[in-house]
């Protein structure tokens, strides 16, 4: 891309992100998951060779597709617990951005191992679901014929339903990272931990 083309493109990007931030997502959680996985996997199928060569391109796709669906701030507050007490909004913001960066990269890495969209099933809703917590259960078909369950926790915000936790085989992202991250934030301060996550010194593994 030439420099001339870059500036309008950036403006467009900025504009579209402002628009999408204000738009209320009317879809229900199950539809959001279904639409998103479908779109992601279709894109993956189409550009698999390019993505394998350059994983950052897939990361970009995941970022645009997935991040608007996640309530990053809420996730961050759950992970921080009392370690987040007294944190300024901009500190919380950069912390959750750092976390999301790592999350996107890991998600993109995992995605490359997928083959077709038949491998993801969205299961019927079950149990008590409310505006505070609605769980969408999916399962991913594995090579050996078995399944790995992946559940998403949603809550309703002013911008519509947003996800704030992912659970893989019963292991919750929020619960697991809380004990990895919050003691360090208590000990070293939120800015230091945010820097460490950005620098890749703290890996978020799941």
């Amino acid at each position, binding site marked *: 891309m030439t420099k001339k083309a870059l500036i309008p493109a950036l403006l467009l990007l900025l504009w579209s992100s402002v628009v999408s931030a204000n738009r209320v997502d009317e879809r229900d959680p199950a539809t959001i998951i279904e639409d998103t996985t479908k779109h992601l996997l279709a894109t993956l199928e189409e550009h698999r060779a390019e993505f394998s060569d350059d994983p950052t391109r897939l990361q970009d796709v995941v970022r645009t597709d997935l991040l608007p669906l996640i309530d990053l701030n809420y996730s961050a*507050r*759950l992970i*921080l*617990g*009392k370690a*987040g*007490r007294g944190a300024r909004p901009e500190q919380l913001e950069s912390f959750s951005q750092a976390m999301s960066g790592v999350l996107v990269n890991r998600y993109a890495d995992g995605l490359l191992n997928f083959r077709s969209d038949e491998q993801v099933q969205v299961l019927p809703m*079950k*149990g008590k679901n409310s505006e*505070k*917590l609605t*769980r969408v259960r999916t399962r991913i078909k594995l090579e*050996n*014929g*078995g*399944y790995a*369950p992946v559940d998403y*926790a949603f809550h309703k915000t002013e911008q519509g339903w947003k996800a*704030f*936790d992912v659970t893989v*085989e*019963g*292991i*919750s992202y*929020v*619960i*697991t990272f*809380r*004990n*990895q*991250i919050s*003691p*360090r934030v208590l000990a070293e301060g939120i800015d230091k931990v945010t820097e460490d996550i950005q620098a890749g010194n*703290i*890996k978020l*593994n*799941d």
Partner: protein
Amino acid sequence: MPSTSRIPFFLLLTLLLGACSGQQTKLTDPERDPWEPYNRKIHAFNMGFDRAIFRPVAKGYDYVMPDAPQRGVRNFFRNLAFPVTLLNSLLQGKMADAFTSTGRFMMNSTIGLLGFFDVATKVGIEEVNEDFGQTLAVWGWKDSRYLVMPVFGPYTVRDFVGRGFYGYFHPVSYAVREHNNYVPLVIDLVTLRAELLPFQADIDAAADPYTLVRDVYLQNREYNIYDGDPPAPDYDALLEEY
């Protein structure tokens, strides 16, 4: 024999725990892991043991053995857990699971050539995961303290008690007890360790490997107890602390 030696062992454990309780360390999960100082020590010992002995052997095995036979061996051992699965399905009144696991065992032991091939999963008969620890949980022992055992690794008190029964019904333990044959046990452990090798990088990279192992273990137990459908975490409680 094992039953008599277990009682003094528990006594010893209690003493050990008592000795640790004087320490004023901050607990990361006081409710489920009140013995954290003791557990951390055993965890450190286990990691050293793993690094020095267990992991090198597993790595060697992983290096010489191609993936397909490796999976075959794991399938074989998983198939052998059938008596434990069946008995615990029955103890929990899960008749459908009892039938499913029997069907799986029969299919895999025959068409699956003694269990080396998991044909049942391939045709859509899903694996049933039941053991004595889960039965105790279903019978009412819901919450149990986290307990790291030397060499054996993560447990809860409940699941360690469950593991004691397990020895009587699992063919691998039977070989050890009745025939003094440790070969199947060693192969089972080494191949299981090899199967877990890919997670090592994650554990090493964790900010606190101890809590990572603990949290993953406890959540996974919960997941199995509730047969894959555990209640959601108490997010409100997490937020209240905020």
